[in-house]
């Protein structure tokens, strides 16, 4: 007992010392070990103490109570699953591109703000949200967030939540596709490898369905092997003067390619393309993340990015806006992500064997995702700051060639020579790395550094393209599964207006709804590719705002659940993160729409373009399009804000009614059934 306490004291001390070193360090570089230690130590303390408090006091998990997996076991979706396996399953479902891209973009503020937000945001916010929603869904036979919102707060809240989810999906898919476009433009190696994933997936699909039914693992192993062959093959394609031009495309062409792919994938039978790609990307994701963790621990690279850069004043080249509120919406996944509430109320609650497992899987799973985000931040921060900005600032800012770029970056106070930028591009097998905004390429360079130092010098180019392939593969998997989910949601909504549209088996309705969803994110994607400020500047904040507002909706639902279960005295566990999130996100939303700085505010940018059209600096056709897009982005942002405020108001009304005893505190949980499991 005493020994155990001493152990926890040591963990706490180690974390505190590491934070101290991070905060007080003055010098050129700092070792990534301090960052990893501070994060891991804090997670352990948060898990051991805060999540135990949540489990025992607030939610009161009860192992005598049979879970849906036990009561409703059907061998298909309700399957009792052992807790570490389910942990892996849940983690694979929540960890996507978000925690990799966000921290890399936010690294323009330096490594410290992102680390602090990732670690404390997850312990007090993100992991709490995931845990409570998982718990709520588990007590309600695996109901979705939308259904819970509807049952606990009312039908209008439920409908609003559904519309919000659909809108977020559209923005999410657009911005993730933009990340892929920026990674693959003018990169024959990358394009070849990613194109190969399509026939490989189709081959796997036939393998699993037609040739050797049920041999899913066998097919996946073959798929991964073929993928690695394609990766190596890409090098020869890129080096060949005859083949390379067939795989070299502009950003716009790649964008239209992804749009066409998204449409086809969403109307094709799932077994042929979507499901095999899903498996492939799951295994690649888990494998690469383990490899990254191992690499960072083995190499412990020095971080060259400053703790805090001058760009906290809002003048940053990657995206506009000050540290508050923009660090807190740029890093969404990894600290707190509303999207998780959808997964935590999806398949996972139907698989828990014991109620207490929800703590490890809901809270612990999110801590793990945050750790992935911290590793991504390390991978970006180990780059020379000059290189980081050369890759991540938009081409228009950098002036289009390495000489102008080096000049511009020197102006920001970071030294980098044109030869360094060119040399790095050559070493990873690319013609240019300039202006590849979006996080994927700089993360890939960082990962290639780590992998080649840990597992083999001289393979830099191969590791770089491995990292690009891994990111593009699972982003495109999100794009095709997301389009499909969006299509179902749209059909469900449309079915309330005209019944036949809601039939998912009616082909015209399927094609129509798919086209509408693809058209939606495709429009924003093309807008992003053509954006003179580099689309990430407008689309990533839009995504961050929407994701954080969904998290606010989830925290509102979580608060309602806590109050209804008679635990109103603990309501601060969700209200505190909710208050912070609303403050940051609504401020960011307001600034994105109304700020006077045309780099930041959509409306002031629209007036700037109007002025340029008047003076003839911008063509009328281009100007009209830019102005329309700015106004559209402004409307979308305001819509998100209004929906969230409406959900907040209707939830708060419910809270007041219950707390003033005008309404009984009655949660709609499934009735208690004693478990049949022993012990």
């Amino acid at each position, binding site marked *: 007992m005493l020994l155990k306490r001493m152990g926890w004291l040591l963990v706490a001390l180690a974390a505190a010392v590491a934070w101290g070193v991070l905060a007080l360090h003055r010098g050129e570089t700092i070792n990534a070990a301090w960052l990893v230690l501070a994060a891991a130590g804090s997670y352990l303390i948060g898990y051991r103490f805060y999540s135990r408090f949540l489990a025992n006091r607030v939610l009161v998990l009860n192992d005598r109570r049979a879970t849906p997996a036990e009561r409703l076991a059907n*061998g298909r*979706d309700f399957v009792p699953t052992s807790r570490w*396996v389910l942990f*892996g399953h849940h983690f694979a479902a*929540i960890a996507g591109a978000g925690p990799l891209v966000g921290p890399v973009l936010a690294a323009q503020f330096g490594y410290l703000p992102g680390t602090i937000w990732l670690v404390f945001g997850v312990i007090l916010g993100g992991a709490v949200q995931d845990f409570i929603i998982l718990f709520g869904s588990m007590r309600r036979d695996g109901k979705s967030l939308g259904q819970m919102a509807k049952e606990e707060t009312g039908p209008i809240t439920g409908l609003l939540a559904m519309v919000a989810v659909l809108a977020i999906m559209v923005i999410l898919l657009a911005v993730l596709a933009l990340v892929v476009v920026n990674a693959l433009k003018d990169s024959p190696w990358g394009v070849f490898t990613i194109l190969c994933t399509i026939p490989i997936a189709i081959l796997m699909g036939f393998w699993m369905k037609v040739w050797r039914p049920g041999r*899913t693992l066998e097919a996946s192993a073959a798929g991964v092997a073929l993928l690695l062959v394609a990766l190596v093959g890409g090098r020869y394609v890129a080096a060949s003067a005859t083949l390379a031009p067939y795989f070299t495309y502009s950003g716009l062409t790649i964008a239209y390619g992804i749009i066409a792919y998204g449409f086809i994938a969403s109307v094709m039978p799932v077994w042929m393309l979507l*499901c095999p790609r899903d498996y492939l990307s799951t295994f690649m994701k888990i494998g690469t993340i383990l490899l990254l963790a191992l690499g960072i621990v083995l190499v412990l690279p020095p971080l060259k990015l400053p703790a805090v850069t001058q760009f906290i004043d809002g003048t940053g080249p990657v995206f506009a806006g000050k540290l508050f509120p923009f660090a807190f919406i740029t890093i969404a996944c990894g600290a707190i992500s509303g999207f998780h509430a959808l997964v935590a109320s999806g398949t996972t609650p139907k698989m828990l064997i014991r109620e207490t497992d929800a703590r490890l899987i809901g809270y612990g799973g999110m801590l793990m995702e945050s750790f992935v985000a911290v590793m991504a931040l390390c991978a970006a921060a180990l780059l020379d700051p000059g290189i980081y900005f050369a890759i991540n600032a938009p081409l228009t800012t950098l002036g289009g060639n390495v000489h102008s770029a080096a000049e511009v970056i020197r102006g920001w106070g970071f030294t980098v020579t044109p030869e360094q930028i060119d040399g790095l591009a050559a070493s990873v097998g690319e013609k240019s790395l300039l202006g590849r905004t979006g996080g994927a390429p700089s993360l890939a360079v960082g990962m290639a550094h780590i992998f080649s130092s840990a597992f083999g010098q001289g393979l830099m180019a191969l590791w770089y393209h491995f990292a690009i392939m891994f990111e593009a593969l699972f982003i495109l998997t999100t794009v095709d599964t997301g389009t499909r989910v969006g299509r179902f949601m749209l059909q469900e909504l449309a079915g309330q207006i005209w019944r036949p549209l809601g039939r998912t088996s009616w082909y015209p309705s399927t094609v129509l709804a798919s086209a509408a969803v693809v058209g939606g994110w495709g429009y924003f994607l093309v807008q992003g590719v053509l954006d003179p400020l580099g689309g990430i500047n407008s689309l990533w904040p839009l995504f961050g705002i929407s994701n954080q507002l969904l998290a606010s909706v989830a925290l509102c639902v979580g608060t309602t659940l806590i109050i209804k279960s008679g635990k109103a005295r603990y309501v601060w566990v969700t209200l505190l993160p909710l208050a912070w999130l609303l403050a940051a996100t609504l401020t960011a939303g307001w600034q994105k729409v109304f700020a006077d700085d045309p780099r930041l505010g959509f409306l002031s940018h629209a007036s700037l373009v109007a002025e340029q059209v008047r003076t003839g600096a911008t063509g009328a056709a281009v100007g009209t399009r830019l102005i329309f897009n700015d106004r559209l982005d402004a409307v979308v942002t305001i819509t998100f804000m209004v929906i969230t405020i409406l959900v907040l108001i209707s939830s708060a009304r419910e809270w007041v009614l219950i707390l003033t005893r005008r309404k009984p505190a009655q949660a709609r949980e499934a009735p208690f059934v004693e478990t049949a499991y022993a012990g």
Partner: protein
Amino acid sequence: MPGDGGAAGQWGSGSVVARLACVLRQVAGMPDYAGYAEHLRRCHPEASVPSESDYYAVYLRNRYGDGPTRCC
């Protein structure tokens, strides 16, 4: 035909490889026909066990039919 590494997997049940395969399949959310057939035999002995391809079709509908299963 049995699935790989399921209850009656190609490597024989109980071996390390079979158990590892089982974990991998569960983590990736792959179909488990053998497990489902076993569930039916145990809990619903009166019900007929669907063919593997019928089971696969239902599995795909469940997995991709409603709600997001993947995150950003």
